[in-house]
């Protein structure tokens, strides 16, 4: 039998078996033992042709329903230039692996170097790695860095306003370890630092802005306070928001983390996205994951290579800074192409338009009875609205659905808490047209009047 992905003909097999002095491939598996070798195929379906699979997937895909997404909660529908898909699909980028052999991976290494540089520029930090799995993973790695960097550190302070799923990931990480997550409570949707206790066993503080509600937080004085106690400060942000809000570096943070989904990655049902981490110079040898650096060959030609590998698991094994091996190289490449296409002006434009459009919608929803727009704090492209009763909220979501609009993310879908059931997070990006905004407003007015 011939498979398109397996090139062997009967003649090839016969030739190879003869060279091995064998009569059948089965002989190569004798070492597995009769007890373990399956007599039959595993119980999955028989093979299908390419055409059959295409048809099958087409019908599966039709069971997904698309709408105009005003959905956020950590994943946003931004405009992506056509260059991103076209260039990130180039076959050698797609089918290469980690650039261990630098000489035949210069293109990939250079792209990662450019990614690292751009992340540094955007976050105002000194060193960025080649990417991490996603935003929640970046937060876990930041916590791990904090307890490893300070002698005797067992606790990490974490704001209650970070993304609920990232908080869940942190809680998973501490399970069964000697470490502890200490929650810093929120007050009216913003981290409340008034009772912050930074003991000797605290490795650092992790916060997020815009936070889980979309609010932009104020970290005045926090870096000084933490550094006095030899604790580290990490800020997680949607990187696109850093085109207008104060950056982690400008707040004096030691670690900047987040997810570059908003920079060139599609919604993709939540993955792949791409975590990032950038640090200040003193943490150069503490940063997890791959790093690409510039060097030269014997003739003095500039070249790129993976560097500072002594931090990593394949050398340090159980003493490594993290267990991460790979990264999200292709997703990081998409972000690099996206930022190369936008330039700084384009990035600022996307961030400013998102801001304006979100505020336009909030302004109009703010006039409606039966719901409150929570805007006591500044926000960027996402804001919470609170309905006065559950029935009206359901009707609101349903009516807008009927118009082809996904009106928002229910906060309770993230926190799994009944107390949050009446809160809807509404996200508006630069991609939402005026027409779509007016459709939303008109439908909302009809339901809530």
């Amino acid at each position: 039998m011939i498979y398109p992905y397996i090139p062997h003909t009967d003649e090839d097999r016969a030739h190879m078996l003869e060279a091995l002095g064998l009569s059948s491939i089965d002989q190569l598996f004798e070492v597995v033992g009769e007890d373990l070798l399956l007599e039959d195929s595993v119980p999955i379906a028989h093979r299908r042709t390419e055409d059959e699979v295409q048809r099958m997937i087409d019908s599966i895909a039709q069971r997904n329903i698309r709408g105009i997404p005003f959905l956020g909660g950590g994943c946003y529908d931004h405009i992506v230039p056509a260059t991103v898909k076209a260039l990130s699909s180039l076959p050698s980028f797609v089918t290469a692996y980690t650039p261990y052999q630098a000489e035949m991976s210069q293109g990939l290494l250079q792209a990662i170097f450019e990614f690292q540089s751009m992340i540094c520029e955007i976050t105002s930090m000194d060193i960025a790695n080649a990417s991490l799995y996603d935003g929640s993973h970046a937060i876990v790695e930041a916590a791990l860095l904090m307890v490893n960097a300070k002698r005797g550190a067992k606790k990490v302070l974490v704001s209650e306003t970070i993304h609920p799923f990232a908080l869940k990931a942190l809680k998973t990480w501490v399970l069964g370890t000697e470490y502890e997550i200490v929650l810093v409570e929120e007050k009216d949707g913003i981290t409340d630092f008034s009772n912050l206790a930074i003991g000797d066993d605290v490795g650092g503080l992790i916060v997020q802005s815009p936070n889980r509600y979309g609010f932009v937080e104020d970290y005045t004085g926090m870096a000084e306070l933490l550094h006095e106690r030899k604790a580290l400060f990490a800020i997680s942000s949607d990187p696109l928001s850093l085109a207008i809000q104060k950056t982690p570096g400008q707040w004096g943070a030691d670690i900047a983390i987040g997810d570059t989904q908003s920079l060139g990655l599609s919604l993709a049902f939540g993955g792949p996205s791409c975590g990032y981490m950038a640090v200040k110079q003193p943490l150069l040898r503490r940063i997890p994951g791959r790093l690409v650096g510039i060097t030269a060959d014997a003739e003095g030609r500039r070249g790129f290579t993976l560097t500072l590998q002594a931090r990593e698991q394949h050398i340090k094994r159980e003493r490594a800074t993290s267990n991460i091996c790979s990264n999200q190289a292709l997703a990081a490449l998409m972000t690099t192409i996206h930022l190369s296409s936008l330039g700084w002006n384009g990035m600022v434009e996307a961030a400013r338009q998102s801001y304006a459009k979100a505020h336009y919608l909030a302004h109009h929803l703010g006039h409606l009875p039966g719901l409150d727009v929570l805007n006591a704090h500044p926000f960027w492209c996402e804001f919470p609205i609170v309905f006065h009763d559950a029935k009206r909220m359901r009707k609101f979501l349903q009516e807008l659905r009927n118009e082809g609009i996904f009106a928002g993310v229910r906060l309770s879908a993230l926190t799994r808490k009944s107390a949050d059931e009446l809160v809807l997070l509404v996200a508006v990006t630069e991609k939402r047209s005026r027409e779509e905004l007016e459709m939303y407003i008109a439908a909302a007015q009809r339901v809530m009047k």
Partner: protein
Amino acid sequence: MIEPLLIDKSKKGRLAYCYPPLDLPRSFDHEFEHLPSHLQREGGARLPEVSELDVVRHFTRLSGMVHGVDNGMYPLGSCTMKYNPKLGEEIAQMAQFTQIHPLQDTSTVQGCLSVMYNLLEDLSSITGMSWGSLQPCAGSHGEYTGLKLIRSYFLKRGDLNRTKVLIPVSAHGTNPASAAVNGFDVVEVASNRKGLVDLDGLKSRLTDEVAALMLTNPNTLGLFEEDILKISEAVHEAGALLYYDGANLNAIMGKARPGDMGFDVLHLNLHKTFSTPHGGGGPGSGPVMVNDLLRPFLPKPDIVLREGGYAFDWDQADSIGKVSMFWGNFLVFLRAYVYILRMGSEGLRAAANHAVLNANYLAKKLKPYYEIPYTGGIMHEFVISVKNYKEQYGVTAEDFAKALIDEGYHPPTVYFPLIVDEALMIEPTESESLENLDAFIDAMIRIAKRAKSDPGSLKKAPISTPVGRLDQVKAVKEARVRY
């Protein structure tokens, strides 16, 4: 040929992308200025200002300086660099998948959920396990998750004493690193003369402090652990659990199942075994599969099929919680699912058969020229040692690797596993034809001859690449990691 950094081609005012103008009432034009000034960013960021064609040429040129499976043979041991079918790429770009938000109402994402549910069913069948989670984003992330399940299992039983994980010396470095991140102490297990786990040595280390033994099978030497049932029995008798690192599953896919061998938990690498592209180092996917014992601890949410359709189930009291932001790398699941649909049950067996046939053929043909320290039962990969070339001619494994680059091949994995001196680990995969294998063998023989006749020339390799061997010391000392 040196491609400049794109930032160095910047010219103020040039654009590669143009946003539509803000179509709101004029009063919103400066809306962003309402963000309180002390919360505003100060100054800009240096990003390229170039034309669209500049962007296209830059990245197209960069891609010309990368070797992927589509460019040529990539026998990188333990990474299973098999061909990545184009159908998977086409399907992963369908807007009906890429434009679906992870937090849409589940009634609107039945297509995505059915892919995930059916993939989990197939993976359960293929591995002989009960169920799993697709959340982990890579192999190391899967290890982290699997070990967390083990940790939680013992915590739930109140067995706080089990703080050690046994790992063979031949294991990949991620194994001990993942154990350490989970708060386990690592204890190494020696290999015997055949390159397999030393059963007696293992038994002597199986105390009541041991939580698990992590094994790769076939192991990193490409050898099947023939005592696996005895190992499994000993581990379980000692009250510990058995962890399967799925790095090498391609060797036995569809032919034998970790579940039948007694493994309690495993992780897969969809980007190795199930043919999703490696992407230059991710995104991959590292699903975790478990038996009934560990199923209650799987990450949340589970995917279930109920009357009315597929749904997320968040109600598992003993779950370890979440390990990734949303549901995992969905577009990678999609490609793996497409691969399984294409291959079917017979096809997966055929892949394993031919991966093993290819590796054995290569080993046989290279044996007269290269030392292969462990040959008992080679499966999908094997490890050669050029120690004798190093001793006699001063030529190292790295020199052989760099010489292969000039022959047009991506080199095998070098200096791994650690128990073989001057190691080159070769995994051809089932994708390579007889002709390709023969050409690779010829190249290896040419290099072996050059190592003897002109060892100096190998030291100078590669010469066909944009740059020659790079100064690693300079890279570390200067640590220039950004523009």
